């Protein structure tokens, strides 16, 4: 595959559009396979795969674009106001967490994803608390935190797998790659 084409404006738009569609499909699949035994509205955050891919193929800015596009389309297609609030807050919390992890703390993609998953669920928990003021948080915290971290771990592993398979990572040259060309040895230009 021609990596250069994907780094042009039109190539980038096409790639980000595909990632947005991917995140929408994942969001839809999540809503079909409800994993909830105890907690209402909680979603895995599988759509983070698309956001993480945008982040590591290009940069944080593109991850923001995919997240916003995803939120816009979810708003149009999934009418329920409450599930919408969950989706938006979860997505924004995890986006900010992941950008901080990459840009400030320069963490491994798996760890970045785990924090994304954790904050995704914490965001949802805050929404639940605001909507349902009498919710007993202590009952939901353990499942939400551990569930989010484990989902983040799975999302991170899947993302690494896809990026390695497609060799699409780092098109913008934001990340310095060591000679092993191992995705896990990525470091950002300013950090080390």
């Amino acid at each position, binding site marked *: 595959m021609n990596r250069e084409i994907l780094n042009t404006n039109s190539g980038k738009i096409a790639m980000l559009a595909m990632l947005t569609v991917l995140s929408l499909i994942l969001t839809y699949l999540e809503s079909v396979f*409800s994993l*909830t*035994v*105890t*907690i*209402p*509205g909680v979603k895995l955050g599988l759509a983070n795969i698309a956001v993480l891919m945008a982040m590591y193929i290009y940069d944080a800015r593109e991850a923001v674009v995919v997240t916003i596009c995803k939120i816009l389309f979810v708003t149009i297609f999934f009418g*329920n106001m*409450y*599930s919408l609030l969950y989706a938006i807050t979860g997505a924004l919390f995890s986006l900010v967490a992941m950008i901080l*992890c990459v840009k400030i*703390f*320069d*963490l*491994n993609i*798996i*760890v970045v994803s*785990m*924090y994304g998953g*954790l904050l995704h669920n914490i965001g949802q928990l805050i929404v*639940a608390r605001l*909507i*349902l*003021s*009498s*919710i*007993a948080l*202590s*009952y939901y*915290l*353990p499942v*939400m*935190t*551990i569930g989010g*971290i484990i989902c983040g771990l799975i999302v991170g592993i899947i993302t690494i797998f896809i990026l390695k398979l497609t060799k699409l990572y780092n098109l913008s040259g934001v990340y310095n790659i060591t000679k092993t060309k*191992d995705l*896990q*040895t990525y470091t950002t230009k300013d950090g080390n």
Partner: protein
Amino acid sequence: MKKLKFRDYLAIIILILISIFTVMVYFVKLQYSTRGEYVTVYVDGKIRYSVSLSTNTTLEIDTGNGINTLVIKDGEAYIESADCSSQDCVNHVPISRVGEQIICIPHKLIIMIEEGN
């Protein structure tokens, strides 16, 4: 999973500590919670019903946003059916301990176990 740096390990340790902390909060709460005596039904934040957990009964709750069918049986409460979009409340396991809840977000409904007074 090779090439994790020191700060990655540190970040993972923080995650593990957060997990342990939340589990501890849960178990401390659980230890102080006992079998409840009342099932309280909140609709939109206001108490609608309060029913003894020891009675076997079926309640049709008209929340204004839809109907949830609450069943109290053998000291446990659960939602048998509901016409909500998510069905999270129907999938919830039966509750019986003080503080446990079943929530139906689309219907703004909370079923909560409370102690007697």
